[in-house]
């Protein structure tokens, strides 16, 4: 029982730290969470977090290869989508890819 509470507290503590870190991250490498990065720079155009077609195409259940998605994020498409190569490193792009692959194909 005591152990459970301790674990729960630790989890809450960790959560808090990551939120604070996310808010105060000066930029650059941080934060690393794909979902947050998506809502920072992608959510405007890829509707409902990428689950629906909006300004940009739906990304959930994409049949594109990982390579294609990574290249699109890096280089964008002129007049449609900005290039993120200068902003995100490979690790961050991999996190975003993971987020996209994890999207369920049910808008809501």
């Amino acid at each position, binding site marked *: 029982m005591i152990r459970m509470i301790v674990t729960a507290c630790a989890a809450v503590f960790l959560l808090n730290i990551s*939120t604070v870190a*996310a*808010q*105060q*991250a*000066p*930029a*650059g490498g*941080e*934060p690393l969470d794909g*979902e*947050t990065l*998506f*809502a*920072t*720079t992608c*959510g*405007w*155009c890829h*509707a*409902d*977090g*990428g689950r*629906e*077609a*909006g*300004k*940009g195409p739906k990304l959930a259940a994409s049949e594109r290869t990982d390579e294609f998605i990574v290249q699109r994020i890096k*280089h*964008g498409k*002129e*007049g*449609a989508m*900005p*290039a*993120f*190569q*200068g*902003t995100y490193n490979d690790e961050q792009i991999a996190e975003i890819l993971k987020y996209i692959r994890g999207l369920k194909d049910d*808008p809501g």
Partner: protein
Amino acid sequence: MKITKPIARAATLAFAAGITITAVPGLAQTVDTARIEAGGGNDWPTYHGNYKSYHYSTLDQINSSNVKDLQVAWMHFPGRSTRGVQSQPIVADGVLYYTGSYSRVFALNGATGELIWSYFPELDDALVARQTHSPYNRGTAMGDGKLYVGTVDGRLIALDLKTGKPVWDTKLVNSQKVTVGFTGAPLFAKGTVVIGSQGGEWPGRGPIFGVDAATGKQKWQFLTAGGNDDDTAAKKTWGNDSWRTGGGGGWMPGTFDPATNAIWWGTANPGPLYDWSGTDYMTKGARPGDNLYTTSVIGLDVDTGALKFYHQELPHDAWDFDSAVGEFISIDRDGKQLMVHPNKSGFIFVYDRKDAKVENVWRLVDNINFVKDITPKGELIGRRDFTAGKQDEVLCPHISGGVSWNSGSYDPKNGLYYKLGQEWCMKLNVVKTAAITEPQAQLNIGANFSIAKPPNGEISGHLDARDPITGAKKWEVRFPEPPLSSVLSTAGNLVFVPDARGVIHAYNSLDGKELWSHNDGTGHQGGIVSYSAGGKQYVAVVAGFGGMATDDYSTQFGEPYKSMPKDTGALIVFGLK
């Protein structure tokens, strides 16, 4: 309004040779502050028509009885129209100036469309690829023998009005670092060229600049996020020093009021666009406090850039309903000198012109629920301040606004204001994000969302004819898809509305009856003007879809938007048979 006799056929040659020909005898040959102030008639010397910003033409050669005979006189294709053509032409002495994407500038004979000169600046292509909305351009300013244009890579360029040769080229913003540049038109007044940068969703300080028209040297800068360095009071309205990444900006040209020597400018939103503070927005969330001077109208001394007065339309804007619309309509009524300014939310603010004190606020659109109301004194009642997560109720209007950045039109003859309203909403999921400034600034949205129907109906748009001070409605025309372009009214009792499908409509300005229409072949999202050249009145409109707001039309409405190009467009000029 009298139209002067035809310019000689040699006019074009004379222009090319650099000889000024004036179509209006008795007026100064150069365009200066006095001429812009008096502007109208044969010319359209500044973005908003003249400093009163009526977007109204005093010409009546084309009128409600003969508009049925209006036809295409000539066209011009700017080419490489990435994100369409969004520019507002300006006209003086029979020459029309307009821009395409990538700040391509054209000077054309207003009667024939014949090219007088063109100028294509070389831009930083790698930077352009990293920017979000660009590389569209929304127009130019003229004055003191030069034409001024901004670029998305942070420069303001002056071109010789007669030859198109660059006179100076000043880098004002380090766009390579802050990502934003200039997409809006500059404003010329009293030897100063004013231009505001993009901002809002990009974590920067959103500067507005005053530049010496003669030399290209920066005279002053006003930082819309947190004010200038000595402005500690404004910085206190941003908890945790969040002004450093506050966004702001002022990306549409405002106007100049000679009575107060002030530039009126609308500022953009703070970033992130959405906040997760909940009701305690003064102490919690991404940017605790009111966030001055974002989502505000500001009055700056044109000579020094000193802040003379301001009003923050939405304190702590948590909805991206900014004040960046550049329309500031000067109207005198009942002994009061007033200024009318649409906020992106669809509320129209009426100010006292001497100090920006709120005189009235009225609603142009039906679907507004980010607040319960804004009182006639400008106070927000029943704000919706979100916490992180999915919001149960849709947010209205949609992020594309209750009004677009394009302008309405005020007809001083009948006292009616013609303005397009947009009815649409959005599903919103607020997400805690952090500003990215290294190695280069990036968007900071703070949410995922999607467009949604209003609670009680379909997405739609409407042209309203209203009293600009009280908002009393005289008539309206509904559109199934919101039109996004500017509107033109004329002394010929006409209102022109270029719609999103590509049809330009002319209505009787007194009752809204449609009198003429023409299909321009692709959607409109830019400017429209009327002018006279060679004794003949013309109406010039840009067509070419592809801005941020248009990006939702394909999934929302299907055809013709699904197949509508976002990389083409034209300038189309109409005259009577």
